[in-house]
């Protein structure tokens, strides 16, 4: 007890204790694990309409919004959530209680529209040059059926147990490394990053990392090239790959003349269900064993673009047709990244008219109708995104992808914990066998554990995600820590006859060894911070932080503890 008091008189021990407590506060372990956290909310979904918002990615994990109950049924884990959501039906009122608010949702039905062989006359309203007129049109009769419920639009994940962010390989997700095709000036790079983030947000993804990275400069033997790293947790690669790799250069042409482009030419893109979705007139059809579903959504063009359209169409011929609907001789062609994605017929009433409200359509396919509908809707979403955010100044190539399945990620965490515990036990046993006293083994355990805690504390504080590379870094840091402790203990235990060789001298010598070893490790890790587009940065940074905590905080405290404990 008196020894403990003596330790507490030492400044180094106090610094150690204060930083340890601070680390635990920063990690913020959560004891109550009940509930599921909201990862993101899909736009235009029932949840979004009820006012549930996607979390701000900068919010620390433990401050995320947690769903506690659905329709008064307690939600404890992901399984409960899935069960509760599966019970819901279309047009139902749902009460979702979170730790922040209670929301009332109305589920949206999923409808399917089929075209019947009968025709009917419908009165349609047209707007042209601010004049409204109506006209009777002969159209196929349609039938709309409710076939289910639209996804309520909340993506959830297990409630975070602490503020430590898990890296991609520990929670599952996709990392894509993109490289601009041509050399890109800094401003363009910033624009690309912004645009990219926006696109992914439109896509309903949050918690994403989009950052620039560059390789070593040419004069150091690297490529000097810029890269963009995109990390998206909980999503598989196919979903992101398409959208990201595209330059997203959207152009609409008539007779090879550009009418409008994605971005500035388009002032509004409809994404609500009344003017976007599966085309009720075209619907789904089957051909050669495949189902095709057409989507459509309306957009508003800028007056300049509308004018261009009027000029391009004014000299076109009207094709003869047997039905009431007649079209112009050229089609409106939609190009995405210079590839023709769709052709739209232009109705005769649009000839030479500067119409600002037009409808864009396209299609998706699948083996069954059930598969073709979501595919079509996904295509629609990507196209809408591109139209909203405009095109990127340069084409991006995918140069590296990593995708980790969530189950594998979870196993990695448990596995790493298991290894850490066993390894720590073995190290402590070895130390016990070697020194044959608890007074030596005890501080070793304390220091080992607190180094891990402090390292995690720093990671939580700076928002650094822990991945496999970081775990390797932790192992290195802890291993170096144990090595240094052995040096300190051995130096302290030396019983030389030399009178001047007091404790101070020994510790000084121990710290000479430790500091020299420390600096060699630091210089060995520094180049890794910059090489390989920074993909090994996590490893290097964790190691550097870990060994620095060791040398400047825990080692001095350990030396004091050992000094006090070993004198009997």
């Amino acid at each position, binding site marked *: 007890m008196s020894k403990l008091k003596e330790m507490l008189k030492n400044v180094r021990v106090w610094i150690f204790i204060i930083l340890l407590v601070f680390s635990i506060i920063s990690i913020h372990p959560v004891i109550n694990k009940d509930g599921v956290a909201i990862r993101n909310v899909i736009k235009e979904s029932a949840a979004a309409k009820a006012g549930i918002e996607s979390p701000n990615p900068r919010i620390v994990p433990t401050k995320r919004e947690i769903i506690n109950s659905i329709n008064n049924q307690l939600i404890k884990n992901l399984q409960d959530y899935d069960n509760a959501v599966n019970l819901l039906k279309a047009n139902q009122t749902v009460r979702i209680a979170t730790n922040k608010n209670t929301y009332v949702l109305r589920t949206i039905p999923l409808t399917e529209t089929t075209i019947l062989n009968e025709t009917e006359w419908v009165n349609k309203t047209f707007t042209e040059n601010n004049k409204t007129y109506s006209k009777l049109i002969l159209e196929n009769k349609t039938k709309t059926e409710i076939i289910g419920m639209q996804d309520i639009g909340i993506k959830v994940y297990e409630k975070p147990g602490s503020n430590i962010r898990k890296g991609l390989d520990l929670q599952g997700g996709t990392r894509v490394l993109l490289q601009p095709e041509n050399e890109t000036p800094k401003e363009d790079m910033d624009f690309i990053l912004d645009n990219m983030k926006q696109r992914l947000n439109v896509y309903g993804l949050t918690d994403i990392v989009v950052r620039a990275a560059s390789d070593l400069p040419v004069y150091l033997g690297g490529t000097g090239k810029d890269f963009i790293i995109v990390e998206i947790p909980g999503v598989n690669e196919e979903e992101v790959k398409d959208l990201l790799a595209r330059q997203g250069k959207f152009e609409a042409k008539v007779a090879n003349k550009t009418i409008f482009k994605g971005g500035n030419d388009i002032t509004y893109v409809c994404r609500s269900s009344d003017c976007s979705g599966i085309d009720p007139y075209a619907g789904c059809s089957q051909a050669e064993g495949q189902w095709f579903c057409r989507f459509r959504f309306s957009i508003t063009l800028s007056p300049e673009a509308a004018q261009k359209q009027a000029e391009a169409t004014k000299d076109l011929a009207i094709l003869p047709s047997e039905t009431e609907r007649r079209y112009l001789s050229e089609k409106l062609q939609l190009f995405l990244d210079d590839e023709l994605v769709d052709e739209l017929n232009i109705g005769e009433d649009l000839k030479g008219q500067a119409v600002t409200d037009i409808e864009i359509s396209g299609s998706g396919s699948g083996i069954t109708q059930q598969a073709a509908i979501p595919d079509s809707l996904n295509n629609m979403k990507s196209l809408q995104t591109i139209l909203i955010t405009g095109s990127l100044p340069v084409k991006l190539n995918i140069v590296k992808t990593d995708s980790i*399945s969530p189950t594998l990620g979870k196993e990695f965490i448990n596995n790493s914990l298991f*290894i850490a515990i066993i390894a720590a036990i073995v190290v402590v046993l070895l130390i016990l066998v070697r020194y044959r006293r608890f007074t030596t083994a005890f501080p070793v355990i304390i220091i080992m554990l607190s180094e891990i805690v402090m390292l995690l504390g720093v990671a939580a504080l700076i928002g650094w995600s822990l991945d496999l590379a970081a775990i390797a870094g932790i192992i290195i840091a802890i291993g170096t820590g144990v090595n240094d402790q052995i040096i300190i203990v051995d130096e302290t235990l030396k019983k030389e006859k030399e009178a001047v060789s007091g404790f101070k001298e020994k510790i000084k010598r121990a710290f000479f060894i430790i500091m020299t070893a420390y600096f060699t490790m630091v210089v060995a890790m520094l180049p890794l911070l910059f090489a390989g587009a920074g993909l*090994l940065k996590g490893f290097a940074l964790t190691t550097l932080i870990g060994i620095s905590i060791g040398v400047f905080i825990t080692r001095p405290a350990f030396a004091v503890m050992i000094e006090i404990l070993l004198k009997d």
Partner: protein
Amino acid sequence: MSKKSRFKKWLRQQNEEEFKEEKKEIKKEETIHEVKHRNLLMNIYDKHYKKLLIVSFALLLFAIIVIGIKYAQTGEFFKKSVDIQGGISITLSSDSYIDISKLQNTLSSDFNQNDINIRTLSAAGKQTGIIVDIDIDLNDKENTEKLINAIRKELNLELKQGEYTIAGIGSSLGKSFFKGALLALLVAFIAMSIIVFLSFRVPVPSLAVVLAAFSDIITTLAVVDLIGMRISTAGIAAFLMLIGYSVDTDILLSTRVLKRKEGSVLDKTIDAAKTGLMMSLTAIAAVLIALIFTQSSVLKEIMIIIIIGLLADIIYTWIQNAGILRWYLQRKNV
């Protein structure tokens, strides 16, 4: 703490120290017979250290020859894995046993143009899954699909999206990353040498430390070549760690031998070895456990390289570096 109280404390320690010395005198007699047991080994270590030094250099030479032969045969210093070579790797976990040689045969005949490498994932000796590496372009959807279908068919697994993971890298990028990593290794090595020279400020012992680290890396690479392991970027990172770990014990040895005034060179070396071997032992034990239980192929690769390096380091620190130091000090004193 004030200077006065520090001084008091120091005085108290000195007294206690002397008191302990007396106790130790008695203990010494008890340990004498223990020393006798080691006589033969100690004798060799003491009297024939120059011969042992030659043995360590012969080992280094052997390692260089192994790497040389590898280079002559393949044009590469070591087998590169997909993330350096360019290509994709598919990881899938499975509870049931997968015969990888059979899978290798089938896939090799389906993709006879490609270099296919199949590894098993295991934890605690039990197979938990496989990794298929192949050098097809990561944007080559058609062949990727074809490969997955072939695996599906051969293993009779459903394999939905999300049940397997695909990682890929373009070949030019892989090469450039590799170049970067090698450069990092070189820069790290040079920087480490500078730190060592600055710390000790005596050429021969510093050179001995740097040589030991160099020999350690070369020998580890030779062993990696001999067991036919493929190296990825993570492996390069492991070599970087090795620089740090290997230099640890060398610095310990040099500090003890050069800076401590009392005792013969041999005594100081053995003393340092007791500490150093304990350090290596704990590190090897921890790394071995990680190697046995980890499910991650990345960590496994890192751990294998570190274990080989730590073992080689024992030879290069306590025979090569220690031998050079002794030889240097003897010549200096003559």
